[in-house]
Structure formats: C-alpha cells, structure tokens
C-alpha cells in the first residue's frame, strides 16, 4: 500500500494549500486520498500548525507559506477579508485556485468587494496579478466535499464549475478536480465565475455535469 502511495506521489504532483480552515482541510484530505503530496500553510509558523495537520489532515505536511506556494497547484482558502495577506510575490507565475467566497450576510461587508461589480475572484486576481487564477470549489459546502466525491465515471457524479482566463491553468485545475472526485464544467473566463457566487442557483444547489452546464448557460443567456 505504501508503495502504491509513493507511485501516486510521483505521478500526481504537489498541492499547496493556504489556509487550514474547514475548506482548506477538506480539500487537503481529498487531495491526500487522491495521491497528491499536500503542503498546508497558514499565517502562523509551520510548527504551530503541526498538530492540527497531523490529526485533521493526516498525510499532509505543515509547512511555511513560501514552501506551500512553491507547489504545482496552490489553493487559496483563507478568510476572504485576509486575502491581501497572501503574498503575491511568492505566487507569481503559479496556478492558483481561489476557493473563497464573498458572502456579506455572514461575513459582513468588505469594502474591496463592494466597490464595483467584479466577481470576488477578479478582485483577488488583481491582488495576485502575476498568478494564473482559477476560481473553483466555491459552490460546494466544506461538509459536502468528502461525502459527495466519487470516482470518475460514477453515474450522476457531482460537478464543480471553474472559471479563469488561462486555458492551460484551467486544464491543470480540471484534472485536479476530477482526481478529487468531481466532474468539471468550464464556466468561462474569470468574470463568468460570478454565475456561481453566493445568491445564485448554482451556489445553492447540487448538480451533475449536464445540469450544471445548463444552469451556467442559462446565466449567460440572461446576463
């Protein structure tokens, strides 16, 4: 079994996760199960997170933020009001998954996200201006991620949308999402990510790929 896991490490690559909250740790557990090497960092030193990571996401490694940033894919899942604390320099050139949401009814108003009509990921991407930002994992609850994940080809498999301006980055993220247990639907460019932000039908529901494509197309038509 260990040998199999090592083969996975060799083939799957490394995932960095910034944020050890409920979303970051759920993605981490799925990624470990899928055979990725997973490195998790927060704003605290790695040693402060070691016990949390050992128990809550066994198989992942607690590291400092620059080491997590130096991965094949980097998931950003920090509380949104702290997004500017995520270092843009260390993520330059990286494929970054923005798993965060702007949800003012629960988190309160944040001025940066009230200023104009941009999707929250466009605001984040303006901060991470040298990164290749893909928006995904936003319309699934952290407590749904593990029970809803299923192997490729499972009937009625749940689908997750992604949005981004970099085609190659989106392909890498799509492969990651599939490996974690979900079908993938391309929602379009990063701005199109607003079609699955809080308040939308997609954000509130649970859909397979066919249904999700239809819902996202519907939003485009009515937009």
């Amino acid at each position, binding site marked *: 079994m260990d040998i199999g896991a090592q083969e996975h490490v060799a083939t799957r690559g490394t995932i960095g996760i910034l944020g*050890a*909250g*409920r979303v970051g*740790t759920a993605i981490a557990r799925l990624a470990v199960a899928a055979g990725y090497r997973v490195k998790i960092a*927060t704003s605290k030193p790695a040693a402060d997170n070691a*016990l*949390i990571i050992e*128990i*809550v996401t066994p198989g992942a490694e607690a590291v400092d933020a620059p080491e997590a940033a130096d991965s094949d894919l980097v998931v950003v899942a920090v509380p949104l*009001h702290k997004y500017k604390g995520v270092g843009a320099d260390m993520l330059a050139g990286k494929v970054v998954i923005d798993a965060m949401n702007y*949800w003012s*009814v*629960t*988190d*309160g*108003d*944040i001025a940066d996200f009230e200023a104009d009509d941009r999707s929250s990921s466009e605001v984040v991407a303006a901060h991470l201006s040298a990164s290749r930002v893909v928006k995904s994992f936003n319309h699934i*609850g952290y*407590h*749904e991620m*593990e*029970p809803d994940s299923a192997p490729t080809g499972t009937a009625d498999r749940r689908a997750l949308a992604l949005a981004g301006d970099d085609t190659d980055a989106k392909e890498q993220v799509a492969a990651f999402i599939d490996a974690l247990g979900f079908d993938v639907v391309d929602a379009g460019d990063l701005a199109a990510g607003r079609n699955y932000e*809080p*308040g*939308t*039908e997609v*954000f*509130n*529901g649970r859909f397979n790929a066919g249904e999700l494509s239809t819902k996202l197309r519907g939003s485009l038509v009515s937009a």
Partner: protein
Amino acid sequence: MEIGAYSFGDSQRNADGSLRSTTEAVQNLFAAIKHADAAGLDYFGVGEHHTTTMPASSPGAMIAAAAAATTRIKLGSAASIIGTDDPVRIFQQFATADVISGGGRVEITAGRGSSVETFPLFGHSLEEYDDLYAQKLDLLMTINNSETENVTWSGTVRPALDNLAVVPRPASGKLPIWLATGGNASSSARAGQLGLPVSYGIIGGAPHRFAPLAELYRRSGAAAGHVPESLKVSVGALGFVAPTKKEALERFYPGWHNLNVEMGRLRGWPAPDKRAYLAQADAPGAYYVGSPDEVAERIVHLHGYLGHMRHFLQMDIGGIPQEQLLESITLLATEVKPRVERLLAAK
C-alpha cells in the same frame, strides 16, 4: 452524560406565518427553562441573537431570572458573543446569577457568533474581528482566574484595568467558561491550549466527523499541560423528541421550514427542500429528531466518537408551538436521559 437544551427564544408565528411578539417569545423561553428544571433536564443554554425571530439577546438577564426560578438545572449562555460585548459586564452578570442560583449552576460559553449582527448593533469594526475575540476572551479568563476581586489587564481593544475591582465573585469561586466552535480546527487547538472545555455546535453534516477535532482538542490540551479532567467536550445540535419518529419529524418540520425560508431570504438560498430535511434527520445526519429510543441511540453512537459529557438540543426553531416544545423537553429529560445512561453503562 448530561442531557440538555438550548434556545434562541424563537418567536411564535400566526397562522398566516407572520411573527408574534418578542414579549411572548421571552415569556415562553422563561417558561421552558422552568419546565426543563422541573422535568429533570441537566442543562439549558440561552441565546445570543438579536433578531425579531430570535430575540434572546440577553443571556445574562434571562439566566439571572432563571437562576431564581429553578433549583437544579445548570444554566449557560449558548453562546455569549464576547467579541462585541464587554467581558467585565458579562462576568459580573453571570457571577451575580451564580450567586442567585446558590452557586455552581451558572456557566459562560464564549463564542464568535454565527452571524455578524452584533457588530453594527454595538458599534464594532469587522476588521478587528480576530483581535476583539482573542483579547476579550483573554480578559474574561483573566477576571475569572483572578484570586482576588481586583484585576489588572491591558490590551488594544478595550481600556486597561489597573488593579480595579470586578465584583461580585461567583459563589463557587470561578465560573465554568466554555469555548464554542462550529468546527474550525484552530478553534479546537486554541481551546485545548487554553485548557477550556469546548462546545461543538453541529448544525449540518455528519456529527461523527468532529472526532478528529475532539482528538486535536484533547492532544492540544495535554501538550499544554492541562489535566484530562479539565478537558471536556459538549455538543449542541438541532433536534426534537416525540413519542414516535413520525410525529417528531412532522412537528419539527414546519419550524425548520420557517427558519430556512427566512435564512434563505437573508442569504439568497432557494426554498428549503424537504428531502434535505429528511436526510439530515436520519443517521448519520446532523438532526437528532425521533422517538426517545432513536435519539438516545444516536447520542450514544456519537459518544463513541467524541467522548462528550453533555449533549443538548435546539428544539424551538421557527416558531414551533410551545406545548410541543415542552413535551419534547419532558421526553428528553424523562425518556431520553435514562436510556442514554443505560446504554452507556452497558458499553
């Protein structure tokens, strides 16, 4: 195992769905606590929310009144939103209630709150969210752990205390202070490091998935040098008890529906789906809805994962009729509790 209830004092509804008065809601909550005490329930937790549907805004005042009107039940906040309140005032109110209770029946549960309604109400900035919570928890613990009436503390979110008296002291010396969390791993680690008992609010998903958090809590506590007896876990969850599961499901559903319609209006959710309700109300879902046998078995099942010492249910959501709430409280105290004790003893 202690068995209890908690409430946000949900307002009753008229037949057309409109809300009845907050006055009636507070009267009902007070009556429910007295009923729970008479029925033999171990614990009752109160508020804090600040909405017309959930008007239990002042746990300290309600608990002080209940302390005088009850004889046995433990009374606590569920939870006190300490970040936007003054820990000096919270401590004084709960210490006063503790004296009134005869000593040893009053507890504080400190939480962040599941919404941010207290920030505009009390004039605090969301940008200070983390600092407010951490510093005010520190102040609350400093006062509670003080050997004398006089307390010295300084921080940035509140004026310093320079050897100032904070009175009265609780009849039992110190108040139990619990840390409430909805499942963020760092909150469990923090509770363990501080040596505070932890209270998990589990409102969705499978409760046994909290097992790693309870382990993290206990190992963090042990690593910080706290003895195992000081590291307690409690669980608050939605639930309802009736003579049969069918009746329990039918009685709890209208309130669940009302609550979700209102939350949906605030948060942009769609109309609630009864299938989601039914799925959560079956093992291993989050809702403890059923006959006394079923609810007792599910509590004991979770105990195998969390080793918790108290399990308490929120039953009066969305305007569930008061008489049905009182019957559920009676069944919880007289039917569920003895079954839980029997099942645990047989393990």
